[in-house]
């Protein structure tokens, strides 16, 4: 706890100063509410408007979690497949990288044309942004497995699948978690972008409505929740990582 205070007081005080500056300047300089509302006004809207945006928020959370889960599963599956079958890897890897060069903003309307306004095109977008960091990080993890472990396993007569399950997979865990952390934050963005395309619920929808009616305070509320959601997600995975790689200890580099 002491440690938290010692490390945290600097960024916290910068944040407080920034908010204070924002609050005072919007009061004293008379900046109109629709241009830049004061932090207090945003907090007020956040509290009083809860019942209005809560359904949007939960819809986005559900969409994010579903998309992230599918995206991670796809990422892990792709990495495993490409790792175990090098020929497939050679054939598919360039395609994987290309898939990341398609601008999502351009792809999104196309997906709506092909799949309609349902949940499917939205999930496709999230999966598309999610799976790549996981697949790449996982493949790197597999490949970096220390040769001495694999050498021992081979000499001891382990099969390819035993080597994969008992050595390569656990060795890659820290890398997998790096991928998951990146994807977690991406998935929230992906969800919001996909909602812009046409949905009837979600923080993305709430945000579009708010900005087109000049309710800037609501836009900020939406931004705040998007940030919180990403952060929460990130922390959750960090905790999971700590538990899953507890063998590493404080000073061990595996």
């Amino acid at each position, binding site marked *: 706890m002491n440690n938290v205070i010692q490390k945290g007081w600097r960024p916290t005080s910068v944040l407080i100063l920034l908010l204070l500056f924002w609050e005072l300047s919007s009061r004293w300089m008379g900046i109109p509410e629709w241009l830049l509302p004061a932090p207090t006004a945003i907090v007020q809207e956040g509290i009083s408007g809860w019942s209005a945006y809560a359904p949007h928020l939960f819809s986005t959370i559900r969409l994010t979690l579903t998309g992230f889960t599918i995206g991670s599963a796809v990422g892990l599956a792709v990495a495993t497949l490409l790792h175990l079958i090098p020929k497939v890897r050679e054939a598919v890897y360039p395609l994987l990288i290309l898939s990341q060069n398609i601008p999502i903003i351009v792809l999104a309307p196309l997906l709506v044309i092909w799949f309609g306004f349902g949940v499917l095109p939205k999930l496709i977008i999230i999966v598309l942004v999610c799976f790549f960091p996981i697949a790449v990080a996982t493949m790197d993890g597999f490949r970096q497995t220390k040769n*001495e472990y694999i*050498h021992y396993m081979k*000499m*001891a007569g*382990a099969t390819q699948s035993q080597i994969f399950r*008992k050595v390569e997979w656990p*060795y890659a865990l820290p890398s997998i978690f790096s991928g998951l952390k990146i994807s977690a934050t991406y998935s929230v963005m992906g969800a919001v972008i996909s909602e812009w395309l046409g949905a009837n619920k979600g923080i993305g929808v709430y945000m579009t409505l708010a900005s087109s009616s000049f309710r800037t305070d609501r836009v900020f509320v939406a931004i705040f929740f998007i940030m919180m959601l990403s952060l929460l997600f990130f922390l959750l995975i960090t905790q999971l990582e700590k538990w899953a*790689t507890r063998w590493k*200890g404080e000073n061990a580099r595996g």
Partner: protein
Amino acid sequence: MAKLNIDHVNKSFGDNLVLKDLAFDVKEEEFVSIIGPSGSGKSTLFHLIGGLYEPDDGMIQLDGKRINGQKGAISYMPQSPSLLPWRTLLENVVLGAEIHGKMEEKTAKSMIQKAGLSGFEHSYPHELSGGMQQRASFIRSLLSPQSLICLDEPFSALDEFTRLEMQKWLLDTWEQHQRSILFITHNIEEALYLSDRIILLSDRPATVQREFKVPFTRPRDPSIVLTEEFLKMKQTIHSELKVLL
């Protein structure tokens, strides 16, 4: 009958002939050391016995059965302990047995205890010292179901004190379990102290230069390394090695 029989084996990588007409055997419950100049192909020999590569010519037999290119026929202890960092000591020592579908946690526990590692069963490798890790690595090879153990310079990375302690411990443990052992080392003293027979390999391409029978009785006391007979043998091997260099 010989436990392991290396029958006129040749192996080359490209144009590089590494093993040439190599022939020797290891008998049941015998401790055989192989010494030779570095880069003479000792590790290649182990990889052949381990089945990672196939010999170009000749045959490798274990218990009278041909094992050319057959993985997992021997139990192996590598140069570095190679314990998996995400497994506890106990989980690590049963790995060799686990690969072959046999697990005896009870034997494992009693062996850990005999090795002076009790209390560390649930520690991770990074919490153990280098000597403790090597002990764990040797227990792992003892617990593996194969009857021949191949050790690849297991003590070369340890400091002098730990090495002497480990040699004594290895001898005691081996005398209790009586398995056949093939031991690679570049340390003449270590080879003399531990083995029944020493096989001296020539420089590349490696072939058997000479064989020495080690006359000391068992159980051996560490103090034999200071006896005149021991030093004399050491000298003989040394001069033989010098011819090679």
